[in-house]
């Protein structure tokens, strides 16, 4: 059973589209595997939609925008509507093609959230292999990490912090053992030495604390408060 979940503040930022792609993908993968967080996220999304688009938001519009700017907007709207409805095509249901990778004879199907990401070359160090997912997020580094049976990650601390999401297999560290879907956020205060008896595949994101959100909303959300 999954025991490690993203914090609710993180789920909120995820539902609002405020997190960087690396973290958004991680939470999407967890939510897909965790009925509990799935339900929470659905409720949060409904609530955000109500807050943004509901009745009280509407009366705020009218008072803040004023009559003149409303009329101004009406004419712009008509042009925009014309452009949109001129397109007679309807969008087909998109097809999902599962992306598979093979590592040391073991086949893995990648979760949809990361299936279309560019994957760098795997580099190997003993029983540990790591490949970058090329998201272009500067100081945020996202990777797939694979341990062969009996493999381990050398003891390390984190300068900023590190997210580990177990995709397949199992591993354990000083804190306990982990199952697929477990979502672990560690910061510089933690040290750990993950070991895998049967082998595992993880999605990891490593970064400096300041870089996890996108948009000007980050000014309103000190990131440390979001994660811990």
């Amino acid at each position, binding site marked *: 059973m999954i025991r490690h979940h993203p914090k609710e503040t993180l789920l909120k930022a995820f539902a609002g589209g405020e997190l960087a*792609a690396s973290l958004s993908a991680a939470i999407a993968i967890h939510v897909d595997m965790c009925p509990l967080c799935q339900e929470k996220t659905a409720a949060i999304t409904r609530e955000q939609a109500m807050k943004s688009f509901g009745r*009280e938001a509407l009366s705020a519009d009218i008072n803040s925008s004023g009559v003149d700017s409303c009329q101004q907007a009406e004419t712009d709207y008509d042009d925009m509507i014309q452009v949109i409805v001129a397109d007679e095509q309807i969008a087909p249901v998109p097809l999902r093609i599962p992306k598979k990778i093979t590592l040391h004879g073991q086949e893995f199907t990648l979760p949809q959230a990361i299936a279309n990401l560019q994957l760098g070359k795997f580099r190997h160090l003993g029983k540990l292999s790591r490949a970058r997912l090329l998201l272009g997020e500067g100081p945020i580094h996202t990777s797939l990490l694979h341990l062969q049976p009996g493999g381990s990650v050398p003891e390390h601390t984190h300068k900023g912090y590190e997210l580990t999401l177990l995709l397949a297999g199992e591993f354990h560290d000083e804190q306990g053992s982990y199952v697929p879907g477990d979502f672990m956020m560690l910061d510089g205060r933690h040290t750990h030495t993950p070991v895998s008896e049967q082998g595992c595949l993880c999605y990891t994101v490593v970064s400096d604390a300041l870089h996890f959100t996108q948009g000007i909303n980050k000014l309103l959300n000190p990131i440390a408060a979001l994660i811990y």
Partner: protein
Amino acid sequence: MQVISGALQKNQEGIKPIAMPADFDNKTLTRFVIAIALKRDKQAFTSLFKFFAPKIKRVAATRFNNSEQVNEVLQETMAIVWRKAHLFNIDKGAVTTWVYTIMRNVSFDMLRKVQANKEDNLSDDIWPLAERNIGEGEIFADHLAKKHMLTCLEQLPQNQQMVVKGFYFLEMSQEQLARQLDLPLGTIKSRLRLALSKLKLQLGDDNDQASS
């Protein structure tokens, strides 16, 4: 975002809402989306557009600080509503939530374009708008997932297309369709039967060609 909307709400305390030009409930909004999906109803789309436009712009303005980008979010969001209305699932939630998630996805992709200089449009992988694993085992539903299906569908008479789209894309019951299109149940049933036999013929022909 919450900080901002919270502040706005506080300002509104005690102020009586002015008569709102178009305050639709979910039932009405749903009717509009269905009319777009089934009939490409431009009037229904115009009503939806005018209902959501000021709301979308207000939320977008908390993320983008130039009006060009705010307008881009609006246009792109509503264009998706127009093109994907048939993927809206009436059993899965309110129209408001659906439009909000589309806007959230559009904003996410735009921010990523601006900040990471990537045009990979990841939002649909992170928050899929439509269920893609359509009814396994059901041969017909399987075909639906294919682009090809839409091409065949387009060749049907308009009145049969509407019924098939409503039944398979919107997952409406035949009774719901009859009410929505204001037609007797018998007519819906016979149109669906007719449309399906034609589609099966077309899809079947193609399958034979492919295997020979």
